């Protein structure tokens, strides 16, 4: 038996013994943190067991608490988890965004301090990038960090900080070199949210709710040792982190969810048939809608195949240039999907709440509104098109 076969058997046995039955059903994923809340006691047990084994972050090095698995082993772990329908043990921006950046840019001390709590789900991280005056032009950000002994003193405001009201810490872009050209005066700083100088205020989106907040810093403090990647070198870290974020968001074009909602997964064609009816040949009776549904389905397949190809190309060589279009196309495509659902549903698609609308209808409507942010957050579609034209196509700036 090869090592990988042995690994598969051991993994299967371990999962069988350690994954609680309740966690083998679909449901919400725990986010951990200092004030962790669990919708079921088994969620806590599952997180602790997986965290201890490092399998919340399977491919991170074991010296930082990770699973230390190779790509092949991780694939087996994911397959075995999939086979029993095991839920992901932990959702976290620490895993998806901060961790990979720390592994690449942090010093040894910082890795030892910050990575293991991410693995165990003990710290909930949020991201402080955008500011009211710095959206697409992120590098113009003005939140200041001034050195004062062993600390930085931070003043300014961040916006669109997801879950800032629940998070324990924030990874933040701050201006440390006000005299430098804008990209060269930014640092990447880790700040504790649980202190006097930090306040948050939730933002309500057009969909009626949202995880987003505004975050205010008034003489907040962070130790100088928590500056990652070097003084005024934060833009390099930021760019890499944005790549991770965009990969995360472009996946939504594939799953077809507004913000990952499981309630609206039924196919466009089914929705079309249900709301506009079928003709004698069982076809969607509105020919124009049927045509648009087919167009959307074909583009879904083409996009899914392209993301698959990007994965294959990346595996055998350099990162594929086509990766740059994933965020742009995926989010635009997802918006169109919801527009088509609304078109099919007619007045049933524009209800806000209460009687006269099913739970699924209301969810689709809210998700439709939420998708409008998909092509704005993490870099607008226009910014993505700039990235493609400059970095992939080599079109000049001036």
């Amino acid at each position: 038996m090869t090592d990988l076969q042995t690994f598969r058997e051991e993994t299967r046995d371990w999962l069988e013994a350690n994954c609680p039955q309740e966690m083998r059903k679909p449901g919400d994923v725990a986010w951990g943190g200092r004030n962790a809340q669990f919708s079921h006691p088994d969620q806590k047990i599952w997180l602790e067991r997986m965290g201890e084994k490092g399998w919340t972050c399977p491919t991170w090095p074991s010296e930082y608490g990770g699973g230390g698995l190779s790509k092949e082993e991780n694939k087996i772990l994911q397959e075995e988890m999939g086979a029993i329908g095991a839920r992901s043990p932990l959702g976290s921006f620490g895993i998806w965004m901060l961790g990979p950046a720390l592994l690449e840019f942090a010093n040894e001390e910082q890795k030892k301090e910050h990575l293991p709590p991410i693995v165990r789900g003990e710290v909930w991280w949020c991201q402080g990038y955008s500011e009211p005056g710095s959206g697409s032009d992120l590098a113009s950000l003005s939140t200041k960090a001034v050195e004062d002994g062993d600390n930085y003193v931070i003043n300014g405001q961040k916006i669109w900080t997801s879950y800032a009201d629940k998070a324990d810490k924030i990874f933040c872009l701050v201006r440390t070199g006000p005299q430098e050209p804008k990209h060269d005066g930014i640092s990447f700083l880790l700040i504790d949210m649980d202190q006097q100088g930090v306040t948050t205020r939730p933002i309500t989106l057009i969909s009626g709710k949202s995880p987003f907040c505004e975050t205010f810093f008034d003489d907040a403090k962070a130790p100088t040792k928590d500056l990652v990647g070097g003084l005024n070198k934060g833009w390099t870290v930021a760019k890499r982190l944005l790549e991770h974020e965009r990969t995360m968001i472009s996946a939504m074009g594939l799953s077809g969810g507004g913000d990952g909602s499981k309630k609206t997964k039924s196919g466009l064609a089914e929705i079309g048939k249900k709301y506009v009816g079928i003709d004698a040949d069982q076809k969607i009776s509105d020919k124009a809608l049927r045509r648009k549904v087919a167009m959307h389905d074909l583009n879904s397949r083409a996009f899914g195949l392209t993301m698959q190809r990007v994965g294959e190309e990346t595996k055998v060589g350099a990162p594929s240039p086509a990766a740059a279009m994933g965020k742009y196309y995926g989010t635009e495509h997802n918006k169109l999907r919801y527009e088509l659902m609304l078109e099919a549903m007619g007045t049933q698609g524009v209800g806000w709440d209460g009687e006269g609308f099913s739970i699924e209808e209301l969810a689709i409507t809210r998700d439709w509104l939420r998708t409008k942010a998909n092509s704005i957050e993490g870099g607008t579609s226009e910014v993505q098109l700039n990235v493609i034209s400059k970095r992939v196509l080599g079109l000049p700036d001036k």
Partner: protein
Amino acid sequence: MALILNEEQQSLKDIAKEFLQKNAPVTHFREIRDTQNELGYDESLWSEMVNLGWSGILIPEDYGGFDFGMVGMGSIFEEMGRTLTPSPLFSTGVLGASLLTLGGDDKQKQNYLPRIVEGSLTTALALEEGNRHSPFSISTKATKAGNDYKISGEKTFVIDGHCSNLIIVAARTEGSDDDASGITLFLVEAEANGIEITKTSMVDSRNSANIKFNDITVSSSNLLGEENNGASILEEVLDRAQIAISAEMLGNASQAFDVTLDYLKERKQFGSVIGTFQALQHRAAEMYSELELTKSSVIAACNAVDENSNDLKRMASLAKYKAGETNHLVTNEAVQMHGGVGVTDEYDVGLYLKRARVTEQIFGNSEYHLDRYATLSEY
């Protein structure tokens, strides 16, 4: 399913690219066009392609072919789309080879397939009767007369119809005009009595012809497949042909895009190269995205042929739909972004625009494949 080429496939593609760019660049196409070459392609170039083994790529080894698969064939078509190379590879190496391989009996395969591989036989499929693809709308009649059949009717848009030795005709032996059943395929020698072939001059100079069958006599041994059962062979062959032509269209669009991108980087107006203008940059980036989607669709469809996928029909429609839409968009934009020179005959972009529109018509345009995809998906 792999969506990237393996080493062998990549090397075939590299060889094709090098061969075509050296021996058949766009200037070669222009020469054929401008000299009004009667054949519509260069015979010595075709025999070099045959020597490279291209005509036998889809033919089984038992009949002298190389059985190299559609991914390999697709790569060659993509490169030919870039250079606009005129050749009978589509009508013979894809249509004829597939019709005979999938529909022929052993004797027919022994008789014809080795000749396709060695380049001594060219073929054409006489299918369409109207001004848009409708594979089963066939009123050309074949009636039994003793051991023979008599065929009468008119076919249009027969690719390479005027320069092929063997014409494969879809005729109705039963049923009414739009029925899928009752269609029978016949192998007819181009020299047969009663055939009237008129070469048509298409906007892109692609070879095609109208063919009239005036009560011609065909022996029943020249039936391809069973009587009344031609539709099932046709469907399988059309899937392959749609995918091969999609690969050519991908090459056509890719080349039009590359040429345009170069132009955006060198043409100066208002004191800067026009590629600095965001209005053009974003349109270029959108075209790039569509090209990437098309590339994935085409290679996935080629793979579906080689892997005998049970979703082949839908994959063929995916490839033809995406290739049609993207080629349409890119060639229009290529002309527009070139400005005045884009509408001159001297610049190549216009050639790609014309070729795009004719290939769109071959075996179903995007609207046809949208409808087909929806029907196959049961909505």
